[in-house]
């Protein structure tokens, strides 16, 4: 496939060749400045762990009350879901649905969907309905608003302080942590997984990789040159072989502009 190593900027449509990035670098479009893609290397494990941790924190944040108000001996506390029920009961169904989607449904979908694709990919196979799940992640991502909700909670607390005694509860801290975790999770671009799945597909006849770096190295070899022989023993050799001949690919389009800036 001669188009496999091309990328078009999603903001200005400029074509670039797509060199593999390793580590904490990202490729930017020199024309409009958009980030084209980032290096993955070992991030897959980190993201996987972070997603799992975020899922647990998410359950705590949803299951426990956020704050408790106390005035003249009367107390009142609420979980996020309780707040939604209160809204629903007041004929504010539309608002309740908006808040439900942006703080419960979409973040939860994103976490579950990420785990559903990440765990099998790390084990070396592509899960069923892979494409649909990845597209679902891209669809829900802009609508998950945990960090906005966190700011909303803080503002509500400050507002309430003048009215009653405010006692913070477990979910408040859980939401705080969850905000930070989500900030890490959304740095991960699910597009990378399509490339990775391609690489897994390419080498289905060969032995399964043990780590993501392993599979990446072998996959580069399948793009860059003739298929690696069966008896390639170690990762180190595979990597050495692939870095030595990245230009050996026949039919690389020569008329295209140079690789994008790295940095």
């Amino acid at each position: 496939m001669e188009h496999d190593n091309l990328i078009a900027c999603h903001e200005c449509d400029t074509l670039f060749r797509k060199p593999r990035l390793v580590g904490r670098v990202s490729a930017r479009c020199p024309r409009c400045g958009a980030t084209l893609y980032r290096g993955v290397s070992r991030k897959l494990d980190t993201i996987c762990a972070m997603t799992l941790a975020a899922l647990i924190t998410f359950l705590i944040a949803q299951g426990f009350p956020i704050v408790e108000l106390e005035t003249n001996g009367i107390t009142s506390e609420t979980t996020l879901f309780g707040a939604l029920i209160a809204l629903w009961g007041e004929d504010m169904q539309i608002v309740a649905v908006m808040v439900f989607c942006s703080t419960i449904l979409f973040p939860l979908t994103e976490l579950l969907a990420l785990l559903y694709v990440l765990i099998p990919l790390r084990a070396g196979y592509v899960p069923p309905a892979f494409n649909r799940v990845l597209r679902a992640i891209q669809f829900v991502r802009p609508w998950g608003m945990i960090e906005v909700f966190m700011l909303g909670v803080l503002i509500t607390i400050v507002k309430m302080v003048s009215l009653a005694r405010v006692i913070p509860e477990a979910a408040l801290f859980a939401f705080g942590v969850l905000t930070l975790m989500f900030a890490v999770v959304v740095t991960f671009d699910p597009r990378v997984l399509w490339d990775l799945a391609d690489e897994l597909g390419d080498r289905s006849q060969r032995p399964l990789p043990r780590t993501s770096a392993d599979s990446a190295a072998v996959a580069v070899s399948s793009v860059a040159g003739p298929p690696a022989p069966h008896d390639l023993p170690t990762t180190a050799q595979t990597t050495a072989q692939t870095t030595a001949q990245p230009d050996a690919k026949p039919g690389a389009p020569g008329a295209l502009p140079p690789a994008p800036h790295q940095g």
Partner: protein
Amino acid sequence: MKYVTARRAGLVSCHACGRVEPRIRSITPQHCTRCGARLHSRNPDSLMRTWALLIAAALLYIPANLLPVMHTASLLGSEDDTIMSGVVYFWTSGDWPLAVIVFIASIMVPMLKLSVLVLLTITAQRRSRWRPDQRTTLYRMVERIGRWSMLDVFVVTLTVALVRFKSLAVITAGPGAIAFGSVVILTMLASMQFDPRLIWDHVDGRTQKPQDSDHD
């Protein structure tokens, strides 16, 4: 420096997985061979859809600011709060950093979003070559800050759930909250429908052949 766009090279990139493929001209829609998403060189009817959503958002912006978002009933009487009166309340009670945050998130951001998107859509429609890089930056800003206007809706949600001291004070949500939430969602949809590649299509001296159905 001359840049080759995917469209000029007869290619189209998948908006979901990023794969670049040769463009096939046919009546049936083309699908990505890797992920199965529908391929289009530019968002279909991008400008038309952006306009529709923008107009809807601008209309709803009026009730969002005029109607009360919260209704407080207490022993001291009842009171309606709009978005602006919430900001004023924070300002007069001395919480001016909060007043600034709420003002930025609920008043400035929606206004900025609406006006920036109108500017972008008009310039894209006129095939303007005016400062494409800065217009792209504006677009990126709109995409990034849009969600923060949802802040007020969340504050209302929590306040309503917390302040229900039957005899002392009860706060209920007002119709302004529905309008306000809708404005946020509509402007987010509008910025998603707008295709930033339209900004760049006419920038390189030579005008690229407009390919029906992709434009306007």
